[in-house]
């Protein structure tokens, strides 16, 4: 009776990372059928605190963790659901990631992948969220020191804000797409605290020039730039697994030098376009509109954006 217009296997579109749910990202990123969730939704390990605020809970508290395979390689993986409470860190949400990173210390996977999609700390559980972020950062550093790379993937609608941005800065490598944003204070927070003169959060183009994927990739904050598809993120993660920097004094001294140099070179820049111009981009105004291919070509021509200093 009803005709089936869509064949799910042959959709006209590749799955958009930005649009996909955390579970859909995991599905598409890992080898088919390889994901094994720990503390799945059926266990109903929900936030003990949200009911106090009369807020709905999610079965997985917006954090999905488990193991899987990436082109056959064993990996541990965590994904934040950016649409639930803005992907923010609460007690259960954070503890699941802490547990996964601690598990990795024993399991020694080829990598731990963190699929960021977060506004930062969940205010209703702020102290738990903030502490969990500190625990996560310590665990990541321990893992890296033990030789397990931690790779962050950023391209969700909530970005990687607040403590999420700090965790991202702790990872061995970051993949970012155009839509991905990495920042500590969000545009609205800056505007609320310092006024629209400082930051007009409604100027979306400005938001992306300041903290969006292309800017972060151009300045070396992120290591790889992916198209907004799950397939592209998978490929980028695979490419990075084999070449991650060690966590040692030499790396951090190199990072210190890199960050000091950034301050020296761009300290007086008011806009992303000024920074890109100093990096040697001929037509900085055109950068936001560049296709992935054109942007990749631009990156290749600049060279210095790729480094091991993180």
């Amino acid at each position, binding site marked *: 009776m009803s005709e089936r*217009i*869509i064949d799910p296997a042959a959709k006209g579109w590749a799955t958009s990372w930005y649009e996909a749910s955390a579970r859909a990202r995991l599905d598409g990123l890992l080898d088919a059928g390889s994901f094994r969730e720990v503390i799945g939704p059926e266990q109903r390990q929900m936030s003990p605190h949200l009911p106090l605020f009369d807020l709905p809970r999610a079965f997985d508290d917006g954090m999905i963790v488990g193991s899987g395979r990436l082109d056959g390689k064993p990996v541990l993986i965590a994904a934040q659901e950016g649409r639930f409470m803005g992907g923010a860190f609460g007690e259960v949400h954070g503890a699941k990631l802490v547990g996964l990173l601690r598990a990795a210390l024993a399991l020694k996977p080829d990598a731990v992948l963190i699929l960021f999609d977060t506004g930062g700390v969940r205010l209703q559980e702020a102290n738990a969220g903030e502490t969990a972020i500190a625990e996560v950062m310590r665990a990541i550093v321990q893992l890296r020191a033990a030789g397990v790379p931690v790779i962050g993937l950023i391209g969700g609608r909530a970005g990687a804000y607040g403590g999420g941005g700090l965790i991202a800065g702790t990872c061995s490598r970051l993949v970012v797409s155009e839509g991905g944003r990495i920042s500590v204070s969000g545009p609205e927070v800056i505007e609320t605290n310092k006024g629209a003169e400082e930051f007009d959060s409604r100027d979306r183009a400005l938001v992306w020039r300041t903290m969006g994927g292309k800017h972060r990739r151009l300045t070396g904050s992120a290591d790889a730039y992916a198209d907004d598809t799950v397939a592209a993120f998978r490929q980028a993660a695979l490419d990075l697994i084999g070449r991650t920097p060690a966590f040692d004094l030499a790396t951090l001294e190199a990072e210190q030098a890199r960050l000091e140099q950034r301050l020296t070179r761009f300290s007086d820049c008011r806009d992303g376009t000024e920074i890109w111009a100093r990096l040697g981009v001929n037509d900085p105004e055109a950068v936001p509109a560049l296709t992935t291919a054109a942007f990749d070509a631009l990156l290749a021509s600049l060279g210095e954006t790729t480094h091991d200093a993180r």
Partner: protein
Amino acid sequence: MSGWGRERAARDARIEAGRAHAAGKVVTAADVVALLEAILQPGDRVCLEGDNQKQADCLARGLSQCDPARVHDLHMVQSGIVLPEHLDIFEQGIARRLDYSYSGPQGARIARMLYGGQIELGAVHTYLELFARYFVDLTPNVALIAGVSADRDGNLYTGPNTEDTPTVVEATAFKNGVVVAQVNEIVDRVPRVDIPGDRIDFVVEADRPFYVEPLFTRDPAAMTETQILMAMMAIKGIYAEYGIRRLNHGIGFGTAAIELLLPTYAERLGLKGQIATHWALNPHPTLIPAIESGWVKQVHCFGSEVGMDRYIRERSDIFFTGADGSLRSNRAFCQTAGLYACDLFIGSTLQIDLAGHSSTVTQNRVAGFGGAPNMGSDPHGRRHPSDTWMKAGREAQVTGDPALMRGRKLVVQIVETFGEGLVPAFVERLDALELARKIGLELAPVMVYADDVTHIVTEEGIANLLLCRTADEREQAIRGVAGYTEIGRGRDRAMVERLRQRGIVRRPEDLGIEPLDADRSLLAARSIKDLVHWSGGLYEPPAKFRNW
């Protein structure tokens, strides 16, 4: 002195007074207040140009700064109450009486002021209706309009947002009125002459470009599965069924979804060339994929849309453009085109009652409907047939001589049964009636009257009101698509099933549509960025719609 020529003399006196603040016709932004105080007389009828898109905002600010001791009791006759200044002048006593058409963001404030008696209201018109009155009994003494550029002789280039300007100027300049135009810049030579200089008395070089609201930009990223399902039903159950070629769309997400399904879903149904070829429509960014896929033959526009100018310029095969290459829009003509030359209007609303009356007015907001009541009405003066029009006429006809049958325009409401905050779209009684009572309106602000509506599309199905033969059938047909609202749950299930047998109520499955197929992957574009790609980089969306 003879009794004739007084108006002309009065006009000459106003212009003479204004010249003191001008160099020729040119006035600086700093002198706007002085100019307006010189040319305006208490009690004047004034058209301050502004509609749902462009605004003569520099002149609005100037008018609001006039001294109420000198300028007072004005009668504002204008399309839109949109800027805060449009209402400030009533609070200050500069204006007293109002005849208008559309109020978007100021809807709540205008309701409070009407209730408080700060505004003496004439009527809430449709655009076309107000334009008509400009030529009969609401002719402006002074028109304050907006354009992109002018030369020193006053030759005016309106830019792509021509909109109401020719109509306003026509009524004012040819009936002894004074026309003041604000422009973004004074140039030696305008790109094209939209209004000849002899109709413009003063040109104000504005302090900043006039404001245009990107009202017709719908972000595909915000489109839901429910809206996609409704769009699928509309395409298959109405567009395909009636072979709709000439049409107008409202500004909602449901109709934007239809636009984005043309190159995908409708293409797979083999409808290309059969439907949606000729439009009276603003340049909706969501129409870009259909245009690029060869679906669209021609589009005439009420106004332009922010960011679409370059695209339109490169697609003059589709749009109306001037010799300079840029869009020429015209609200009066496009409204007329929508009224008489389109076979279908489809748009959304906030409330529908059991008879099918609808309104976007709620208890605390006087929205004003702009063009929707004209688009959403069956023009009894139409005399040319089309297959669509005749088919609808046949469905509606019950009695009388078939040789005297005339067609019907299709007027479709596409609504989700629940709106924002779980507010039901179907109600026993429109809030508009309560509002009319509260503020003493003689005519309740109904957007589309029941006798003009032919179909209602919701996520539950399509109700074909043309086929209803009794008021009871009509009510049950409406209840039959009202979903889980109280109205919907109050249906006579058996009767709705009988209506379904007759094709008056049609469910997705009756149309061969599986609701679970209503997936975002059907959209030709899923983001504003996709629209930019479809346009080959020609579409330049406003910053607030970007995420790159």
